[in-house]
């Protein structure tokens, strides 16, 4: 990406910002789907129980922390393997 000129980098930045929003929305959808699947097993009611709500909130927090930690390691390994 170093091969790009200033104009190209500006354009790319715009493209990447749109992509980042898309990635965020996708991550949010994945998180909702996975936490719902893991936490909600009972369909005798149409409201979430307290236990289910708590589980979903913890699941989401954990997912985000997991994702951040993977991101940190990813960046480190990427730097290391690029440098080879």
């Amino acid at each position, binding site marked *: 990406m170093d091969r790009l000129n200033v104009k190209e980098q500006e354009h790319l930045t715009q493209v990447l910002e749109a992509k980042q929003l898309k990635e965020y929305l996708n991550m949010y*959808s994945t998180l*909702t*789907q996975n936490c719902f699947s893991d936490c909600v*097993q009972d*369909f005798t009611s149409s409201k979430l129980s307290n236990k289910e709500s708590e589980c*979903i*909130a913890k699941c989401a927090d954990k997912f985000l922390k997991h994702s951040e930690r993977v991101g940190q390691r990813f960046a480190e390994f990427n730097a290391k393997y690029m440098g080879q």
Partner: protein
Amino acid sequence: MSMFGIGKNNQTINPQNIAMAEQEVEMMSDIFNRLVMTCHKKCISPKYYEADLTKGESVCIDRCVSKYFEANQSLSQHMQKRGQENPTP
């Protein structure tokens, strides 16, 4: 900008408006597809004895969608709160 241009101006296509509207649709259809798959796994028995939804399956679907919306809503609030506490750099 031009005396006569107001109406006309109103009729030009702003690519950003289209892109935003497209993204909105894209997101809705993504959520819908995930909802279909998730509630299918939760409610539909993979035996397929009959082509119609059973009473039990129908009720399960309604509740599944209801709970999924509630989960989505509460997660959306949860994430906003989280975003305010730890603003991303």
